[in-house]
Each structure stands twice: as C-alpha cells, then as structure tokens.
C-alpha cells in the first residue's frame, strides 16, 4: 500500500477537470476489481485515484436501438448481462459478461473497467521474484520455458506472450464496437479494434488511451449477426475461470440459406481480443455445416505460434469455433 489521493467527482465534466489537473500517476477507478487487486500486488501504484463508479451519467444502458446499442462505461457487468433485449438480440455480448468472473465480481465491476483489465499471467502477477517485461520492462520473460499453458498463441512477441484475459472485449471485437472517450483534449471515438495493442517491444503498453482519458460509453452497431450469436467459453471449470479458449461468433443467412455475415473473434489465446477475418471469409457465401464450420475453425487457428504447454489450444480452438458457429447458426433468423 502506498499513499494516494482520492477524488470522487460528481459529474463527467468534473472528472475531466480532475483528470486534466492530475499528474501521470493518476488512475481512474471504477469497480476496483482489477485496480485494487493490482495495487495489493504492488503492480499498480497510483498516486491519485479518480473514482467514477457512482457516476449515474456513466451507467446508462440503452438497448432501444434501432441502429446501435450503447453501454455507459460505469454500467455494471451484471446489469448489462441481465438486460433482456441484449440477451435476445445480442446473446454473444450478454454471455461474454455472464460467463466472466463471479456474480459478486459482476455486481461490482463495470463494462468500461472490464476492457482495461490486465493479464492473469502468473509471472506478471507474481511480483519481483519473476522477470516480466510487462511489469518491469527489460527484465525478461519467465513464461518462455515456463508454465505457459494459459499463454497466447497469437499476437505474442519475443518479449511477451501474456494473454489478454477479458471476455467482453472479445465479443465487442466480433461486432465492431466503438468506445467513446473524453479527456482534457476533448472527445474522440476509438474503434475497439484500435483500443488494444500487441506487446511488440513495449509489452507494458496495452492500449491506446491516454492516462487522462475517460471511457464514457461503448457502442455496438445492431446487426442480424448479433441475434445469431454466442459467446462460447471453454475453461478448466464451469464457472469462475478465465478462458482456455473462447469464441465470439455470429452469423446471418441470406435468402438462400448461405452465410451472409460471419463474425469470429477469439479469447484466451491471444495478447489482445483477436478477430479472425480469414475464418469469416471461409464461411461467407457458404452453407454453414459441420464441415464448413471446422474449416473456418482451422482458418482461425492457422498461423498460431504455441509454446511448450499450450499446443492443445489449436485443436481445442478449432473445435470451439465450430461449436460456436453451430450454436450461433441455430439462433440465427433464417
């Protein structure tokens, strides 16, 4: 524990002012389920904390459409997961939240904070006893040659193969969500595809937001592939576990019954939410069958670079993609 200042602004405008006035050690606090955790592990050590958890302005959930759904950054995971319209029209999004963490955590945690959670890599979280380029740039990476069963097979670099652990961002990635942010330099919109970055030579840098930028809301275009969607999560136990492999899948069919729109994004296997355009192409214009779904799965996992203990994620992943597409297809309006 280290001393830090704490402010709870009453409005978003006030929050922006506070952020503008505070220094580089400032952290936004929402549910705290990631931030406090990392502070206790001495990985995050903010000098100032700006609490936006109770800003009702940031907590709105709008699933009236018709063009897009929007979720305030401070909306609780549990509330979004339980939204009846979302569950009907966008099951992948609702399921990605419902299958994350535990009910207690979902009651606290927000959909904005969720996007910026950090890797669960044991060497990152384990503290100074282990080299970790993400925690201590230049110190090395213990995952190479170590326990890498949970690590990424896509998007890694020579410095880091830590998995991006979140589920929600994977589902958002499949459906081209955007994130509205506000900061001292004004407002801007970031595509979810541009929010997270691969580790490259700077694994400590995980996303493209500035420290003084506040996520206001997340917007998702409504699409018929949303209705025919699922978030299929395979893990070591049926609940309260991060994904070994997860797949956000969505399909929509044309009049002929061929796939018109296909969305596939992967979780648990990459250093960031991982969209699979090549796999989507495999199915587009084709009939969705067990065989074509498996081909899409194979395309999704082509080019994977496994380590010592996570080779199985390729085979498992291919099948998870196929299963997800089947579930999505069953839900799609024909």
């Amino acid at each position: 524990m280290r001393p830090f200042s704490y402010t709870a602004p009453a409005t978003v405008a006030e929050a922006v002012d506070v952020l503008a006035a505070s220094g580089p050690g400032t952290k936004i606090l929402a549910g705290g389920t990631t931030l406090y955790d990392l502070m206790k592990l001495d990985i995050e050590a903010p000098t100032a904390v700006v609490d936006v958890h109770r800003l009702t302005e940031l907590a709105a959930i709008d699933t009236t459409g018709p063009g897009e759904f929007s979720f305030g950054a401070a909306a609780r995971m549990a509330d979004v997961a339980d939204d009846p319209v979302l569950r009907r029209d966008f099951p992948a999004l609702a399921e990605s939240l419902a299958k994350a963490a535990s009910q207690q955590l979902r009651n606290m945690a927000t959909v904005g904070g969720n996007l910026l959670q950090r890797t669960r890599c044991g060497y990152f979280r384990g503290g100074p006893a282990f080299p970790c380029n993400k925690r201590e740039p230049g110190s090395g990476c213990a995952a190479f040659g170590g326990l890498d069963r949970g690590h990424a097979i896509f998007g890694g670099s020579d410095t880091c193969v830590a998995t991006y652990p979140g589920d929600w961002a994977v589902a958002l990635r499949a459906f081209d969500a955007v994130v509205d942010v506000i900061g001292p330099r004004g407002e801007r919109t970031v595509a979810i595809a541009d929010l997270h970055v691969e580790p490259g030579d700077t694994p400590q840098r995980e996303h493209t937001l500035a420290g003084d930028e506040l996520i206001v809301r997340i917007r998702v275009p409504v699409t018929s592939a949303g209705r025919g969607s699922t978030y299929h999560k395979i893990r070591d136990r049926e609940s309260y576990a991060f994904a070994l492999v997860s797949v956000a899948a969505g399909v929509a069919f044309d009049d002929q019954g061929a796939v018109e729109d296909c969305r596939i994004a992967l979780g648990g296997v990459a250093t960031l939410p991982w969209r699979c355009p090549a796999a989507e192409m495999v199915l587009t214009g084709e009939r969705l069958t067990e065989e074509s779904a498996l081909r899409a799965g194979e395309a999704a996992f082509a080019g994977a670079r496994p380590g010592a203990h996570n080779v199985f994620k390729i085979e498992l992943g291919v099948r998870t993609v196929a299963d997800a597409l089947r579930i999505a297809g069953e839900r799609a309006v024909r």
Partner: protein
Amino acid sequence: MNAPTRRVDAHDKVTGTVRYGADLTSPNLAHAVFAVSTVGKGRVVNIDTAAAEAVPGVLMVLTRVDASELGSPGFVMGGGYGFQSLQPLLDDRIAYRGQPIALVVADTLIAATEAANLVRADYEVEPIAVGLDAEAAETLVQQEAIPLPFLADIVMGDADAAFAESPVRIEATYDLPQQHQVPMELIGGVVGWRGETLVVHEGTQNAGALRGGLARQLGLDPARIEIISPYTGGGFGQKNSLQPHVGPLALAARRLGRPIKFVMPRTQTFHQASFRPASRHRVRLGADETGRLLAAVHEVDQQTSRHDLFPAIYTEITSRLYGIEHFRGRQRLIRTDVQTPGFMRAPFEHPAAFAFESAVDEVAYALGQDPVALRLANDADVDPVTGQPFSSRHLAECLRRGADMFGWAGRTPEPGSMRGADGTQVGWGVASGAYPASVAPAVARLSAAADGKVTVGVDGHEMGQGIRTAIVRLVSEDLSIAAEDVIVYVGDTRVAPQHLTAGSWGTATALQAVHAALRDLRKRLDVADSDPVDVEAAVAATGQAAVDVEATTVAPGQPPEIIEQSRAGLVAFAGPVYPGFTAFSFIAHFAEVRIEPTTRRIRVPRVVSVVDCGRVASPVTAVSQVRGAVVWGIGGALRERSEVDPRYGGFANATMEEYPIPVNADIGEVEVGFVDEPDPLLNPVGVKGLGEVSMVGVAAAIANAVFHATGRRHRRLPIRIEDVL
C-alpha cells in the same frame, strides 16, 4: 426421539454468531505479516529492514530469533509438534520459496502489509530440485530411512514370482500431483498473554500439539498455555499440527505486551503449510483366467522435504482391498526443496486407490469381466496381511447396493459403447476404497447441572465435519434429553488434552469417551443404565449443585498410560491393527462421466457412493461429509494440481481463482448410501471413520468411467481437457 436432525450449530454459523480464531478483536490488538523468501533455496546474506521500520505504525520487524528463545517444534511425524521441524527465523538458511524471512508487527494490518513488502533481502542462491524427477532430488528407501514397524514394506508371499507366473498381467505407472487443501478459513488467529499465561485462539485440528509444541519451543510449562479453538473453518489436514508462525507471534506479543492478530494471506498458505505431496505408483497385478487376483506389487515414490521425512503409507490399504495372497509393497521418499508435505484428506489412500483401482479395472477389461463382479469375486474374508478377522467388512454390500442404486446392470461393457444422441461419450466406472479405522485416547468430562443441562468437554475439534452434532446426538439420545440441554466444548485445552482430530478417528474417539462418561454419570446419578433420565430431578436427588464425571478411553489394546502422550500434545492414536482384529472403513463409488464429442469437456453428472463406516453417528452431517469428499474426488480427478515451475520452486497457482477447486456448476447429483451396521469390536458406539474413506476411490471411479467412455486409459491426474482431445 430428542436427537437433532440437523447440525446443532447450523443457525449460529449461518447467522455469523460463531467466532473463529481470527474473528477475535480487542482494543490494543496489533497485526502481523510475514515477509517471505523470493528464492527457492539458499542463504540470506543481507536483510534490509530500514524502509519497513520507517513505515508509520510499525512496532517491530523481527528477522532473527535466538534458538534459546525459540526452539524447533520438531516434526509431528517424528515425535514433535510442528507441520515441519524447520522453524523459520532461526538462521539464514532458505529451504524453499515462500519461507518467512521476517515478521512485521504493526498497529494496523495495512501498515504491517506495507512494511513486509519493503523488507529487502539479498540471497546466495542455490539450485533447486522440486519434482520427483529432478536430478538433485534424493531418493530414500523408507524402511531403511525410518526403521519403524508400521512404515516397513508390507510383504506377503512371493509377489514377484507369483506375478511372473500369472496368466494375466497388468503393469502400469500412475502419477498424482501436488495439491493443496485450501480450506475456506485462512490459517491464523490471535496470540496474546494473560499475565504469565499464553493464550492462543486459532482454528486447528490439534490444539494439543499447539500447546505441547509451544511449551517445547518457548520453554514454557504447558499449564501456562491455553489453546482455544471451538471452530475450525476447514482443516483437511493442513491444520493438524503447530504452524511456525505461532512461536514468533508469542515472542512478539510478549515483547510488545499486546495481543497480535495474524491471518496468513492465501498465497502464503500454499507455501507455509503442508500440502499433498506428488506421488508415483508402479502397480503390477497378476490374475488367473477366471479373474482371481494372484499377485500384486505396489511401489510408491513420494515427495518429501529436505528437512523432514513425511512417511508414505500407501500400501496399508492396497494390501487389504482384496484377498490377494501375494503382495509386495515398497515405499520410497524423494527429498525435494519444499516445505514439508503432509496430510490432505485421504492423504495416502486417495492416490493409492487411484493407482490400484485403475489397475484392477485394467485387469477386468483385460479379462472381459464386469468390474463389479471382479471386485466381488476377490473380496477378502480376513485381513490378508495379519490373517486376523476384520472387525467388520461390508465392502461387498457397498458394491452390491451401489450397483443397484446406480443402475449398473444397464451398462454395456464395451468401451465407447454408450453414447448420447449428439455423440457424447458416456462412461460408467466403479472403484472401491478403504481407510484404516484408528482410535485415539480421549478424555471426556460431563457435568449434569441442577437446571437439567449437561455440559460436555471432550477431546475433539469441530472443523465442520459435525463432531458437535454427533456428540449432542449421543448425549440427548442416551439420556433422552433435549438437544438444547446439551452444551459441548471441543478444541479447548482447558477442558481436555485435545489430541489431534484427523484420520477420521475424531467422531469415534470422542463418542467413545463421552459414552464411557455417560455410564459413569448414570452411576453417580443413581439411575438405571438405559432408561430416560430426568436430569434435573436426578441431580436434585444427589443434593449437589452439579454432578461431574470424567472418563478416559483408549484404543483397543492401548495401555491407559497412553493418555499421558496425548496430554503432552503428541500423536497417540492406534490402529488399524488391534489385538485380535483389524479395522477399516470401506466404500464403493460409481461414477458417470459424459465427454462432449467436440471440445471434450468432461462432466460428472452423477456419483453414487455407499459407505461402510459402522454406525452412522449423525445422518445429516454424515451425508454431507460424503458429498464433500466426492466433490474433492472430482476435483482431484479432473482439476486440482498445484503448478510448479521447476526453475523457481514454490507453487504458481497459489490463489483461490487460479487453484481450480470445483465450483457448484461442476457438480452433478451425488447420491449417498450407508450400510449402517454398527462395528461390534472397535468401540461400544459401533462407529468407524467416515470423513476420509469417503474420498478414497472417487478419482479411480471417474478415471475408470473415462476409460469406459473413450477406451483411453489415463494414468496421470488430473485428467484435463488436453488429455482427452
């Protein structure tokens, strides 16, 4: 009947009235945190506490204590009291990652935590060996390393020759990983002094060892030590002895003149307390063409620490599960750089039964025989090791009843032959288990008061298994008084020695002593030996305010003096071999697994378990004991493994979210049956142990079911998704 049908403390627990060790508070409480070693082995060459001491509120940073102030507690399995003999802070040696290097005490937990993080140490690092296969691990033959009769190899006949001549031979190696107990209640409590008396509030299964061990460590008169542990929030073997934090806390509390609260962080409980060691089992089974088992060889390598020899007692049950004439056991200990491993629910029996009962299944398939029929045909009628009768043995009944309840007759024998409509592979598996019925010496005090209430103080610890409920049931049934009129004290050295409660002897041991005390009480109250008693009237008739009795009981064949060993806090149990008979509890498990055709998730929709534990002392808590054990078995078969990076040592998944104990969603139906036949020889109440036997064989039943589903034999636990893809 007045006997309670539910847990007597259920309401108090659910409403939070129950006080666990660390729930206590007082105005001048100080808080402690340990700084721990960040290397796997070596020497502390320099330790810098300046920054830690500068944290506001820090009262003390203790990096070294003198051996004259604090000795080793000795190892609980070596005539001592500690989970290990190594007492941190006595010298500069680091034996394992996570070993405490400094104790920080502060006004607040926050200050103590912060200061502990600021303790900096320089180490001289040495190479480590943490796995069974590590080059620098040292292998010892147990019977040579620890020449004690009960640890010698069990040998009957000439198993190697009989195996070589057997027409059907199975030979296979089975591997089980390290696991941790992960009880909900963290280790810790409150340690303080009342004048010259040391008072420790801590959840434990062995208040006696805390007292005896602290007396030895601190050079105190045991009469000046009180251990108060009315409730333990789960122990499962991890809290069965003195933990090394208590001694330093006692010293610090004396120096500061303040009581100290300590709650070990979850990750530290993986490194500062015992765990289930890794073990490897080479099993050879020989049979004739009819399925008669002729010979068995069971060789075990088990991990231990460098500083203690945690004994391996795996063949005790495998030599007795069947009537096999030729048996040879061999147990070796592999010294590695870890804290000393220890007992975790069914410590030897769960791994042993996984290996042996998998091998028996392999024999059944090799012969094309039904696995239940093969087991029934090989049942033992006497203890094959001693030739003595069993005090009671209803394993065959467990198998028959279980097969019935499960619907075993509907199984098609061919592996892979049972499938769901979607291609899901269905497998049914069976396995047997056994667990030694041990008994410990115990003291019970009863006080019948003029208001009609009976107070019981007895050896035993309530760790959620329901010992209090079983005692209340016995007393209220015996005297025909209301459950509310029975008040029970356990886990308290002020009322009884508080010998270790473990090995499933707790209930039988406590009930036997209470039963004896009830006989005395009836005499003193001058009432008949069995009729209902009007306690109020009977006490009034004596003209006294209360009638007090004390009874001491021992295991069959134990000399009465054994109670002195228990009073000293030392392990004093006996069994399973007694003069004239051998006593075990038995169980049969039937499991169904379903394996998805595509992503291959293994589900266990149902388990049926039928137990022979003698008389069922408390049906509600007994069923829940078995259910809990089956959950552990499912975890052990499919999930739990403490991950070790051989480069670093320690345990990598040392948190609740990373260590994959099953969640509710992983558990299907668990149906429990009891033979409920009182054991006629072991004790007058007819009770054998239940808590541990319940887990024995679950993992084998599941692995056998996976084989039946897929035709693939898994000899390494846990069986995870990547193993069945």
